[in-house]
Each structure stands twice: as structure tokens, then as C-alpha cells.
């Protein structure tokens, strides 16, 4: 499983698309927002936490179909399924690799983009914390969606349709933490709920992902 994780990270780094594309997309979304809403600082700083969360979520969504599709096309997935690795572990390792190559860079880049949207100073730590706690759930849920659509040609759009409703709880609690943090309000409740959602998805969804992967390989 460690071998699989290392291989996935290595593939993302060498083939590009992993770090690069997601980050660039995040940047563009955030840059486009002031063009649409006007440059007024007060407005931007009020909506900054939400915009950054939406941007991170979309950037995360962008790279989901690569989790399994490439391995499915070149036969690797069949071979992994016949290897001694448990598929549940494979799904967990793949989700972790996706988070390291997509989620983590987004967390690191978010404060920089926060400057562009004049996020209030108090919001930075909570923005980073909320993304750090929330993005693993995005990767794990996304892995489930990718496993569902792995056998479908051009399944990217369907993948978004399936995954986005599942992102609702994470988005609500995550953006709430960032918003409350930026407004100097109490963040404990949404933060605990966000962490709970993440823990539950990490604990349960790899099993569902492995189950649907098995069905898809049949």
C-alpha cells in the first residue's frame, strides 16, 4: 500500500496535472471572482472565506477522475485487484495520494489567495485549519465517486453530478469555520462537526469505494 501511495504521488509529479492543474484552477477561480463582483474591498473580504472554499472544492473535483480512470484504462486496476493488496486499502491509499497531491497544495496556497480577496487577518489561521480538516473528506468522497464512474467513458460530468451533493455537509461546516474565524466568532461547534464528518467519511467510505470498484471490474 505504501508502494502504491508512493507510485501515485510519483506519477502525479512526473505527469503533471496533479499539483499544477488543480492549483492553477484554484488561482483562476479566485481571480475571476472580483471581475464578476467588483473590486470593492469590504464586499470581497466578507465573501472571501466562502469563495476560497468553493474554489478549493472545485479544484479538488477537477482531478478526481484521474484517481482510477488511468489505472483502469491501462489494465493496472485489474492487476492490483488480483494482487494481495486489499481493495479497501488501495482506495484509502489512492485517496491519501490524491489529498497529498491536490488537497495539501490547496491548503498551502489558500492564504496567499486570501490576500487577493483581502481576507481579514483573523481569518487566516481558521481558513487553513478548516481546509486542513475538510479537504481529506473531499478526497475520500471523491475517491468513492471516481470508483463509481470508473467504467464509464467520459464519466467526468457524471462524476461531478454524483460527488457534489455529497460535498454539501463538508462545504457547509468548512465554510462556516472559515467565516466564523474571519468574523472573530466562535468556531468550535462547526469545527468539531467538520472534523466529525471527515472522520466518518475516512472510516467508512473506503469500504464502499472498494465494493463499487469490485462491481465495476466484474
Amino acid at each position, binding site marked *: 500500500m505504501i*508502494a*502504491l501511495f508512493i*507510485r501515485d504521488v510519483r506519477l502525479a509529479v512526473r505527469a503533471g496535472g496533479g499539483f499544477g492543474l488543480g492549483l492553477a484552477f484554484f488561482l483562476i477561480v479566485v481571480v475571476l471572482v472580483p471581475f464578476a463582483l467588483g473590486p470593492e474591498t469590504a464586499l470581497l473580504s466578507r465573501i472571501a472565506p466562502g469563495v476560497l472554499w468553493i474554489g478549493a472544492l472545485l479544484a479538488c473535483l477537477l482531478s478526481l477522475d484521474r484517481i482510477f480512470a488511468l489505472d483502469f*484504462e*491501462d*489494465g493496472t486496476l485489474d*492487476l492490483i485487484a*488480483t*494482487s494481495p493488496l486489499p481493495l479497501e486499502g488501495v482506495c484509502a491509499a489512492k485517496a491519501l495520494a490524491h489529498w497529498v497531491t491536490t488537497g495539501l497544495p490547496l491548503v498551502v496556497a489558500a492564504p496567499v489567495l486570501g490576500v487577493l480577496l483581502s481576507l481579514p487577518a483573523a481569518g487566516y489561521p481558521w481558513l487553513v485549519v478548516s481546509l486542513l480538516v475538510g479537504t481529506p473528506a473531499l478526497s475520500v468522497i471523491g475517491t468513492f465517486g471516481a470508483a463509481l464512474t470508473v467504467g464509464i467513458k467520459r464519466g467526468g460530468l457524471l462524476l461531478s453530478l454524483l460527488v457534489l451533493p455529497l460535498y454539501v455537509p463538508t462545504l457547509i461546516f468548512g465554510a462556516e469555520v472559515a467565516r466564523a474565524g474571519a468574523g472573530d466568532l466562535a468556531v468550535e461547534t462547526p469545527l468539531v462537526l467538520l472534523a466529525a464528518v471527515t472522520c466518518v467519511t475516512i472510516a467508512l467510505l473506503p469500504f464502499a469505494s472498494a465494493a463499487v470498484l469490485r462491481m465495476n*471490474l466484474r
Partner: protein
Amino acid sequence: MVLKVVDLGVARGGVPVLEGVNFAAAPGEAVVLTGPNGVGKTTLLRTLAGLQPPYSGRIILPDAEAIAYAGHADGIKAVLSVNENLRFWARVHGQADIADAVARFGLGELAARRAGGLSAGQKRRLGLARLAVTGRPIWVLDEPTVSLDKQSVDLFGAAVRAHLASGGTAVFASHIDMGFDVRVVDLTPFRARATVSRDYDEVFL
């Protein structure tokens, strides 16, 4: 390590394609499955590999993790080198040594090359070398000689012979003569009978 197939039936897309298939393969034996396109060779091999459940009958294996499977696609990552590709599969299967497989399939000179730069035949050889690093006794191969030239086919034949000599087993679908003794199982007589009844049941036939 005897592989036994008893009254095996397999289905593709929920419709039975083969039924009542029987054969056995002892250590040192190679079984070649033949039959026209679409008869269900690939489906049967995937069932053997455990990728899909049998529709009926049984597959008797001494050890659930005895089978190394190689399908139409080789599972090679273009941006990794030949060595990295092999080392990944070796680690997945808990093996340490890839030198033997590299030598056996004549990959020594290519070891540091990116797999994406290999020719089709070289890729196929790399895909087959993967079998050697799994350390599993029963090889299940789907059209292993596709896109191999004469020399590579010989190389492949030698590798399979060496595997058989060391007590391994091989089951594969192929159309060409390997140049060594194999047991041929023709799948044509095992085609599922076209039973269509008015009292259709759970399979809608």
C-alpha cells in the same frame, strides 16, 4: 499446486456464455484455451483470476493467492522507468528481487528507460516480466503473444518453460504454437446452450 476447474460456467454481462467446463493443471503443466472469438476465453480467464465470480461450478485452488493474471493491457505506467514499474509490482507482491525477471525477459538494457518510450513488443515483454516478480505459481495469461515478434515469442516460450520446470503452472488463451508441449482445451463445445423459455426466471431467459 493443482488448479482444478469443475463444471465451471461463466457469464458476460449477466448472460451465461460457457458452461460445464472441466480441466485440471498440475505443476509443470501448461493449458492452452482455444476457440473462436467471443466464445468466452477472456471471461473464463478473468473468472479464474478472481475478478468475477463463477456463474456456476467451482474453481479449486490450493491457495487463494496462487494466480498471477495478465490481461490484454499490461498495466505499465509510461512515465515510470522499466525498473520502477517492475519494482512497484514486486513490492505490491512482497518480493524483493527483480534482477532475475529483468534478465529472463531481456530487459537489462532497457532498465533505466521510460516505459513510455518502449516499442509495443518491448512493453509486452515488460508486462510479462511482471508475472515473474509476483512470485506466484499459476500464471493466467490472456493472449500473451499479441504484438510480439518471432524472437520475443521464443523468449516468452523460454520463460514459460522455465516457469513450468520450476514447478509452476500456466493457463493461457492463444492462437499460435508455442513450440513446447501444452494441453489444448477447446472451449467451443462448452458454449452455453441457448435456453429460452416462456417461464423466464431471474436471468430473464
